[in-house]
């Protein structure tokens, strides 16, 4: 105990709580049908400090299960960021929950903070409480989270007749001085009593981790293909409860809700769970991590490997909530880690995992106003939109980056930028009609308003490509993000900075081919070779190029200098394996292959969790990846 320590007699403590209730929105631990919850306190008499654990962690006060983010008007496409600046006090937060909050702060406040989380967090005073009753399922002591040294404004130890209070912050001192009476300095005996209480805690835990917590990431790297994942997930009801009650889980879904007048509404976010089958579902209907054993495994890897690698903490505080909430009793991290450690030898394969450098995106929640300047129909299902940002004069991005396109009332969708960087505030998007937002886009007209967030993600680093021969391989709509880079390198100013250029492009049928007119112009540029193919050419359609999948085009070119050739590959998930094989056969190094991947980039900021490939956020470390960085990730080319 480092901070200043005070003592209140029990009556004075209760008066202190009642005073807080008069001064703040005060949340405290209360009983609910035999369990405990953090809930609005009406009087100090309701407060329980003898709780084992609450059903939901105090996270709900900072990232609510259902949160209105933006209030909007559909017709005008105008939105306004909502927020909550209520001054709050939360009483009774156990040390493990304080540790979890500190972890949430790293995710939501470091770098470019989440505006809504930050506002709530800064307006909330945390009054912690030492654990008096140990939850039967908790293993906090194994993780060292049964006590905590900081992260609170005040820390209470209820010793019956007296309550010992450690001051953890200036804010904490102020509310204690302002709202409590008869504050006494804690005696040596008081301090000793608290220390003894804390020292005795570890022995009271029934559940223990058999391995050191720092060993968890290493253990997990060894057991990726362990039979336990299948054995246990067979019993999984896929109810998501383990993640929903978790103090360190922070994934959310975003959707627009409109009122019955269809005129106004709110963009909301609500807790989501990676255990639920649709978690990764993209607009075209594709689902990643399809098998429930993969989803079951993913949760443990997030807790024990992916988040630790990203933020340097084990994303489990041992509170035991998941164990209590899981009806088939398979969610227990201690049991799973202990079993894996005991049965490590049964694993049939490892996971080689390392972090990839990502970008820190602008994390504003409110989209910037933009307008559709031009619409050009390309095929039956694709249209090109020229967008102008109204809020700025210039829009800087790298080829390969994406934006979140927002239409209030419909939602947001991640769309690759298809035009080269121009320096002004206009850019082009090519949009295929697949989901709600893209369907709406297709019915919109020039001059209509929408919103843009971005640019987001990591694009192609043009400077890495200078002096090299470039081999573009596009499958289907994969030509869209590549067009941004192709047009950039083919521009008069930039062309001399690159060597020979090959473009291989395949689509389903001739009528699905995009930018055929532009290809004609690209061909005219010095030292550019273009080869085109279609999977099939229906009778009656004109086609003067190859027929077959895109890989057949490799036979039509000769890569002159494979060691100095960089390949840029974008296409449907199924394409990559085959194209990469061709590239490797041609002698192109895997460090010289770049791919762009598609996942459900919902927030675009590395928080909502939907676009994860193993522990990699496609929206933050991608969508453009160096192949050598991701080739060992099992979830990449599913």
């Amino acid at each position: 105990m480092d901070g200043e320590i005070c003592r209140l007699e029990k009556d004075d403590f209760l008066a202190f709580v009642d005073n807080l209730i008069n001064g703040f929105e005060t949340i405290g631990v209360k009983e609910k049908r035999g369990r405990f919850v953090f809930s609005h306190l009406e009087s100090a008499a309701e407060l329980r400090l003898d709780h084992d654990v609450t059903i939901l962690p105090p996270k709900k006060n900072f990232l609510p299960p259902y949160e209105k983010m933006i209030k909007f008007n559909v017709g005008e496409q105008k939105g306004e960021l909502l927020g909550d600046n209520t001054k709050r006090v939360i009483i009774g937060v156990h040390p493990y929950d304080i540790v979890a909050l500190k972890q949430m702060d790293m995710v939501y406040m470091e770098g470019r903070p989440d505006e809504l989380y930050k506002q709530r967090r800064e307006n909330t005073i945390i009054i912690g409480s030492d654990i008096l009753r140990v939850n039967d399922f908790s293993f906090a002591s194994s993780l060292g989270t049964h006590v905590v040294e900081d992260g609170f404004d005040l820390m209470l130890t209820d010793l019956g007749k007296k309550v010992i209070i450690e001051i953890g912050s200036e804010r904490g001192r102020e509310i204690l001085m302002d709202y409590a009476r008869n504050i006494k300095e804690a005696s040596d005996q008081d301090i000793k009593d608290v220390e003894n209480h804390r020292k005795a805690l570890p022995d009271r835990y029934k559940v223990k981790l058999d391995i050191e917590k720092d060993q968890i990431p290493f253990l997990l790297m060894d057991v990726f293909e362990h039979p336990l994942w299948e054995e246990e997930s067979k019993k999984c009801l896929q109810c998501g409860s383990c993640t929903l009650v978790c103090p360190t889980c922070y994934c959310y879904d975003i959707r627009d809700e409109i009122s019955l007048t269809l005129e106004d509404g709110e963009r909301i976010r609500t807790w989501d769970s990676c255990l639920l089958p649709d978690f990764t579902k993209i607009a075209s209907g594709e689902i990643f991590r399809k098998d429930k054993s993969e989803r079951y495994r993913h949760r443990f890897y997030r807790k024990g490997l992916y988040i630790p690698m990203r933020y340097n903490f084990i994303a489990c505080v041992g509170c035991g909530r998941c164990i209590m909430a899981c009806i088939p009793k398979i969610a227990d991290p201690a049991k799973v880690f202990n079993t894996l450690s005991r049965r490590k030898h049964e694993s049939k394969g490892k996971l080689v995992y390392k972090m990839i450098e990502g970008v820190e995106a602008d994390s504003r929640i409110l989209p910037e106003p933009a307008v559709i300047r031009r619409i050009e129909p390309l095929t039956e299902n694709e249209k090109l939109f020229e967008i102008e940002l109204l809020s700025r004069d210039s829009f800087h991005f790298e080829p390969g980056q994406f934006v979140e396109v927002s239409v209030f009332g419909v939602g947001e969708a991640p769309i690759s930028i298809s035009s080269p960087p121009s320096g002004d505030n206009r850019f082009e998007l090519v949009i295929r009609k697949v989901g709600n937002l893209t369907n709406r886009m297709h019915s919109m007209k020039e001059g209509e308003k929408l919103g843009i967030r971005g640019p987001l993600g990591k694009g192609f680093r043009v400077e890495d490509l200078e002096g090299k021969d470039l081999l573009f391989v596009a499958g289907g709509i994969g030509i869209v993000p590549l067009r941004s880079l192709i047009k950039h390198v083919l521009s008069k100013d930039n062309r001399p900075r690159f060597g020979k250029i090959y473009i291989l492009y395949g689509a389903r049928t001739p009528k699905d081919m995009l930018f055929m007119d532009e290809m004609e112009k690209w061909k005219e540029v010095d030292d550019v070779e273009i080869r085109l193919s279609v999977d099939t050419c229906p009778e009656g359609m004109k086609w003067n190029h190859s027929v077959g999948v895109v890989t057949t085009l490799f036979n039509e070119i000769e890569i002159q200098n494979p060691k100095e050739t960089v390949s840029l590959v974008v296409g449907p998930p199924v394409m990559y394996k085959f194209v990469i094989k061709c590239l490797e056969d041609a002698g192109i190094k895997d460090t010289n292959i770049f791919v762009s991947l598609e996942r459900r980039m919902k927030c675009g900021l590395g928080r909502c969790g939907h676009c994860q490939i193993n522990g990699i956020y496609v929206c933050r470390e991608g969508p453009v990846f160096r192949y050598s960085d991701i080739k060992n990730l099992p979830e990449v080319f599913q």
Partner: protein
Amino acid sequence: MKPRVAFFDFAGCEGCQLQIANMEDEILKLIEIVDIVSFREISDVHSDDYDIAFVEGSISRPMDEERLKDIREHADILVALGSCACLGGINKMRNRFNEDELIESVYGDKELVSNPFFNIHRAKSVDEVVKVDYYIPGCPIDRDEFERFVISISSGKKPELPNYPVCVECKKRENPCLFDEGKLCLGPITLAGCNAICPSRGSPCIGCRGILEKPATECIKEIFQRYNIDYNELKDKWNMFNFGDKIWRKE
């Protein structure tokens, strides 16, 4: 152009339509965005010219099948409204008996064979007879969900049912788990969308919105033992709304 909507009822208690009739304040807003051209519970107006047909009740007679097929032909979009329509619901409980037995146990030995109103077959969900475009399950339906549905359709979004169980909503409402109280709750296997209305009031879920996924039997036995719940209770509860075992999630 406002979509023209019509409501139809088959074998059921009409409680789902009542939910809509009871929308009170909202119903005025509702008629601003849709034209109600047929809704027996609130108006005697009827037109056969409609875009969206909401069909309530299960289908239990040959004459109902004919009427339903006729509705399907008129409607661009046909929506099954409520558990009876979506699943067959409570009416399906009678499918374990034969029709003569049923008539006799309800109406005694009166001669009803010649009366076409009593010409029944096994109870069917609407989609056992015609193609259903959308489902709004529940006994009764949840008004908010109905509202969301109408909003989606009217604003050009595809209405979607959640693809997760009631537990998700129940956890978000921070309810103590009813299994911990030794009660059998069908929440873990029942389609969400009701905002866990029953468990939030301490009543176990009885699966009125339909079974999302068949749970693995080995784990069910284990669970029941642990929570000291009688396995037969599951069959009874399951059969109340889900006789016929329609499963929502097709993986």
